[in-house]
Each structure stands twice: as structure tokens, then as C-alpha cells.
């Protein structure tokens, strides 16, 4: 028996009153709300200005630069069943006291998509085909090779966004929970063209290639299988798989395997003047083609305060192990330089083992303020690339500060990068 029922009631009411009062205040705010419902648009345009300070690794000399970028994306259903997509970016670069001035236009996408039925689609044109469930390295992203034309940030999100697609013909069929697509991308040019406004098909369509992708949902898993091949390349098989470990953690694995030469062999062979004899001297064998695997596996954990942390292990079976990498660093400077350039164009890690960490904190302490941090660690030569971004955004404007520090020995993977420190301030305006 409760001795003081009246007191209990009063206490209960006293506890409830603040809640009711705050609910009333909240409802009053809602009463005053001016709700502007935006209409969907077919286009998105933004202009981005950046000021940059770099510190050279070799001399420590500080230089400054500026960039103005215009980025356009247009996506419209022109008639029922026919869709047109166009995406382009123009970077106007100026470097003060250093070479590198130049304008670079990147035609990211320009294609038509025909959908005669809801589950049958055909595409034709320049398309950015991207695959991969990992964050830092995507072994199954077969069309990343030669896709980067102008790099404004090392953030993986920026690298995925600012790249050029390949010219191709693609078809896709879908069904409940599954899909299969096939594409053919022909050779259209012999070599890359760095001309400011060139379509640069020599970077993306240097040889005939094909890709078949299939997926089907099984419970919470939605594995994706890929098979690709082309001129001068054995077939490669790929797999993407991700799943929930719990309410806050996603695990992912990405694998690609097939017979191929090492990255070094490909790099040296790509130099037309290099003879098989020199190649044998560099590699110890004229043909090192064998079954090679590439893997990226990791987890993304999100905390209650909406901080997402990704840890990923990257394995490149075509990259160099410690002994090979050390030998290359001690050997011919030309071969070393050629290898680094080739790996960079292919967006493949130069060495065999790498670790990748990525953290994003949305609304960090204050609303609309986001923090992002990235660390790439080369487990073969212990060099590091560290990158940090602080970004505040208003409705139409983003203001960001980015800092990048590359560290390691002079000829190590990240230590050899031209700049030791890069600091950038960016201002982006969305129209």
C-alpha cells in the first residue's frame, strides 16, 4: 500500500510538467515553421576556389598556388525511356614561382541511356563505371586506370568524383533482387593527351576491354561477381561482399584475381624502348606472369555520436614486396620513376601491403561542421600519408581547410612525393 497517494500524484505531475511545457514550446516553434519545399532539378553546378601552400620535400621551399574549378552535372529524362547524362569539370590552375600553370578540363561523363522496359537498359557514350565495396583501395574498380586527369585532393571521395569515364556500350538486365550487366569499351586512341580541352580518350580507351558484372541478393548479403578482360590481358575475376556485424558496424571485402604480370613488369614493358634483355635484368625474368590476387578488407564502425571509423587492409599481389621494392629504390632512377608513375596512373598501390584508416565526424561539436581524417600507411617501407579536412557548410556554401603531410624516407612510397606539406583553403558555392 502506498502511504501518500496524493503526494505521489503531485510528484508525478511535477515531473511531467516540464516535459509538457517543453513539448508545448516545441509545438509553438513548429507552428511558426516556414517550410520551403524544393523542386527536383536536372542539373547541379558549383564553383570552387582554392588557395594552396606547398612545402617541397627536397628543398623545403614554400610555394603558393590557386585554383578555380567549375563543376557541372546534368541528368535528365529527355523523353520517357531516354535519359541524357553530362558531367564536366574545368580546373584553372595557377602556381606562383613554380611550373605547372594550366587549365585542365575533365569530361567525366557524356552518355545516353535507353530503357525500353523498367528492367532492361542500354547505355552508349562516356561512362564512369565504378566498382568496389572498399574505401581506400578498390581492386575491382577496373576502369580506374587512366581515369585521373586533374587531382585537387587525395581524399578518396574526391578521387572517385573527379575522374573521367571510358567510352563504351553497356547493357543491363535486372530482376527482383538481382542484376547482370555487360559492357564493351573499344580502343579509340594510342596514347594519353594532356591538352587542356582534349577528350583524352587515349587515357581511358587505349585498348579493347570488356566487363561482365552480376549480383543477386541472398538475405542480407548482396555479393557482386565481376569478370573482365581485354587486349593484352588475361581474364580477371572479382568479388565484392559486405555485411552488417551489428547495428553500428559494416564489414567489407573486395577481391580480384587472375593471371597477370607484376606491376613493375607492366610499367617497364610500357616503355617501348625497353628491350626484353633490360627487362630480364630488372626483374630476373622476361615474363613474370602468374596468378596474382588483390584484396581490400575492412570494417566501418559508427559511434552513437555519428563518428564513422574505417580500418582497411590493402594487399596488392602485383605490387612489390620489401626485397623487390628495396632493390628498385637502390637501382635505376629511371626505372624507379617509371614504376611510380605507372602505379599512380593505374591507382594501384606501389607496394604489396598497405593500411588505410579513415574517420569522418559529421556535425562535430557544432552543427554543419564536419571533420575528416585519413592515414595511409605503407607497411612495406613504413612511409605515411596523412590528410585532415575541417569543413563547415551553409545551405549553398562550403568552406574547408585541408592539410596533407607526407612522411617517410626519401625514396619511400609516400616520402618521395614531391611535396612534404600541402595546405589548402577551399570555398565552394552551389548554384
Amino acid at each position: 500500500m502506498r502511504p501518500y497517494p496524493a503526494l505521489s500524484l503531485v510528484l508525478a505531475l511535477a515531473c511531467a510538467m516540464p516535459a509538457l511545457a517543453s513539448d508545448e514550446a516545441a509545438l509553438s516553434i513548429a507552428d511558426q515553421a516556414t517550410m520551403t519545399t524544393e523542386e527536383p532539378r536536372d542539373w547541379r553546378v558549383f564553383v570552387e576556389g582554392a588557395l594552396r601552400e606547398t612545402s617541397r620535400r627536397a628543398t623545403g621551399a614554400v610555394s603558393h598556388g590557386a585554383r578555380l574549378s567549375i563543376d557541372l552535372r546534368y541528368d535528365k529524362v529527355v523523353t520517357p525511356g531516354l535519359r541524357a547524362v553530362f558531367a564536366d569539370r574545368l580546373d584553372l590552375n595557377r602556381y606562383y614561382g613554380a611550373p605547372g600553370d594550366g587549365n585542365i578540363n575533365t569530361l567525366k561523363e557524356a552518355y545516353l541511356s535507353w530503357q525500353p522496359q523498367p528492367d532492361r537498359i542500354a547505355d552508349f557514350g562516356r561512362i564512369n563505371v565504378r566498382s568496389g565495396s572498399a574505401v581506400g583501395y578498390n581492386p575491382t574498380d577496373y576502369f580506374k586506370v587512366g581515369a585521373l586527369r586533374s587531382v585537387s585532393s587525395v581524399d578518396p571521395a574526391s578521387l572517385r568524383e573527379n575522374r573521367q569515364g571510358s567510352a563504351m556500350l553497356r547493357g543491363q538486365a535486372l530482376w527482383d533482387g538481382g542484376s547482370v550487366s555487360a559492357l564493351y569499351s573499344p580502343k579509340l586512341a594510342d596514347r594519353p593527351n594532356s591538352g587542356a580541352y582534349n577528350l583524352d580518350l587515349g587515357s581511358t580507351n587505349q585498348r579493347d576491354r570488356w566487363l561482365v558484372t552480376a549480383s543477386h541478393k541472398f538475405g542480407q548479403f548482396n555479393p557482386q561477381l565481376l569478370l573482365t578482360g581485354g587486349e593484352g590481358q588475361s581474364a580477371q575475376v572479382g568479388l565484392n561482399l559486405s555485411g552488417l556485424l551489428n547495428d553500428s558496424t559494416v564489414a567489407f571485402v573486395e577481391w580480384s584475381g587472375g593471371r597477370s604480370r607484376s606491376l613493375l613488369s607492366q610499367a617497364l614493358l610500357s616503355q617501348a624502348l625497353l628491350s626484353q634483355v633490360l627487362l630480364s635484368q630488372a626483374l630476373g625474368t622476361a615474363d613474370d606472369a602468374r596468378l596474382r590476387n588483390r584484396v581490400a578488407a575492412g570494417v566501418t564502425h559508427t559511434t552513437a555520436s555519428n563518428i564513422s571509423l574505417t580500418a582497411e587492409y590493402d594487399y596488392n599481389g602485383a605490387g612489390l614486396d620489401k626485397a623487390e621494392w628495396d632493390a628498385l629504390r637502390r637501382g635505376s632512377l629511371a626505372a624507379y620513376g617509371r614504376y611510380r608513375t605507372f602505379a599512380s596512373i593505374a591507382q594501384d598501390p606501389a607496394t604489396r601491403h598497405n593500411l588505410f584508416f579513415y574517420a569522418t565526424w559529421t556535425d562535430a561539436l557544432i552543427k554543419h561542421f564536419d571533420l575528416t581524417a585519413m592515414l595511409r600507411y605503407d607497411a612495406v617501407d613504413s612511409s605515411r600519408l596523412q590528410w585532415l579536412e575541417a569543413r563547415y557548410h551553409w545551405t549553398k556554401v562550403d568552406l574547408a581547410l585541408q592539410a596533407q603531410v607526407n612522411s617517410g624516407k626519401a625514396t619511400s612510397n609516400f616520402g618521395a612525393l614531391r611535396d612534404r606539406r600541402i595546405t589548402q583553403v577551399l570555398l565552394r558555392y552551389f548554384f
Partner: protein
Amino acid sequence: MMLSALMLCIAFIASGVAQAAPNAQEILAKSDAVRNPDKPFSLTVTLVEYRNARQTGGNTLTVYSKADAAGGQFRSLIRFVAPARDMNKLMLKNGNDLWFFDPSSKASIRLSPQQRLLGQAANGDVVTVNLARDYKAALSGEESVQDGDRQQRMSHKLLLTGVSSDVTYHRVEMWIDVANARPVKARFFTESGQLLKTAYYRRYQMHLGTERPTEAVIIDGLDPNWVTVMRYSDYAYREIPEAWLQRDYLPRFRPE
């Protein structure tokens, strides 16, 4: 004979009374039908967020929803319309299966339920949910509560407990109008019993044949000065093929 007839009559009345006793799960299902159209549909959701009575954010989304023929739960495809930086990004939600797609990077990323894209509103707040499928309801009683339009409503108070692992909230208290099964108010709790948020469903208007709430006011459980107003408009029945509700269709999704 008379006695038998009387007994039969009493038994019939008693069974009628038993049938008339409110069933919590049925009340919840009727309330779901008030919020959710009975065929695949789309609607526009406009969110405005306030901190200390000052507007701090806003989004416009288009939500496409279709009930799963097997389980009855809704699958939802959410298209970001505004602000411009998020334009045409997509989120696909099928239970705990959550995918996010950015047309700029062509990346389809699996999200965990903990990852929030919309500030205070959980991803589960903006999608269509049949609560009766995901929660076991118990009737706590009837009480008069003030609704979001400041009217007193005699309501069933239901206590909902999640029956599957993919529910957004572990426990919910919900008040449903006795007269017409309209949701009036709900309080959402964590597993440990902490109040996460309170929601008022208000401004009922006729849409697709039923009077439905056109606004939800969400009040944060810890900070009552954090308020999100969600307005629902442009209800329309839509053809949504099954093939669209999967990860591999996200790059393709482009409604006229």
C-alpha cells in the same frame, strides 16, 4: 427451452463483448493504415531542424515506398532533392539493409543503422514503416492526451516492443485516437529506457482517400530545444517495379 435460448443469447452477447474489446495489435495496424497508403506510393518530405528556436538545417526528400509482398514491411527509396550539395543522392532501406548512393562518385555504400544522414531524424524516421509488423503491441489503457494541434484526444496508449533486430527503436509508447485510429503522439526509447525523442502527428488532411498526418514534430529526448518538423506532401500512387528496389538499380534511378 426458454432457458437454453437465454443462455445462447448471453453467450452470443458475451462473445460480442469479447470481440469488441480492443486488440492492441489491431489498433496499431489500423493506425499504420492511417499513415501509410495501401498501394505503392511516393511523397515529398520536407525537414526543417531548429536548435533553440533558430532554424539550423533543412532538407527536401522524395520517398518512394512499396510493401514487401512476403513480409508486409515497406521498402523505401529516398531521393535527396535539397540542399544542392546532396541533390540526387539516394538511400535504399529494406529492413537493416541500407545503401547510400552518390551520383557524383557512383559509389554504392552499405550503411549501418547507426549511421545518420539527416541530423536528428534517424534514417528510419523518414521511411515508411508498418509498425504492426516490427513491434509487439500491448494496451496500457485509455487516456486523454493533448495532440499536436492542442486538442484533447481520448487515446489508446500502446506499449510497443521490437520483435526483430532491424527496428529503429527498441521500445515505443504510442497514443492512438480511440475514435479513428489516428496516431496522436509517440515516445521512442533506447534499450536502456532513455527517452530518445517524442513525436506529434498533426495537421491531418485528406490524401489518397484517407485523412493522414501531414506533419510530424520531433522533439529530442535530451534537449527539448532541438526540434525537427517533417512535413509530408505530394502523396501519389506510383508504379514501383521490384527490380528498382535493389542496390544495382540505384545508379539507374531517375524518375520523370
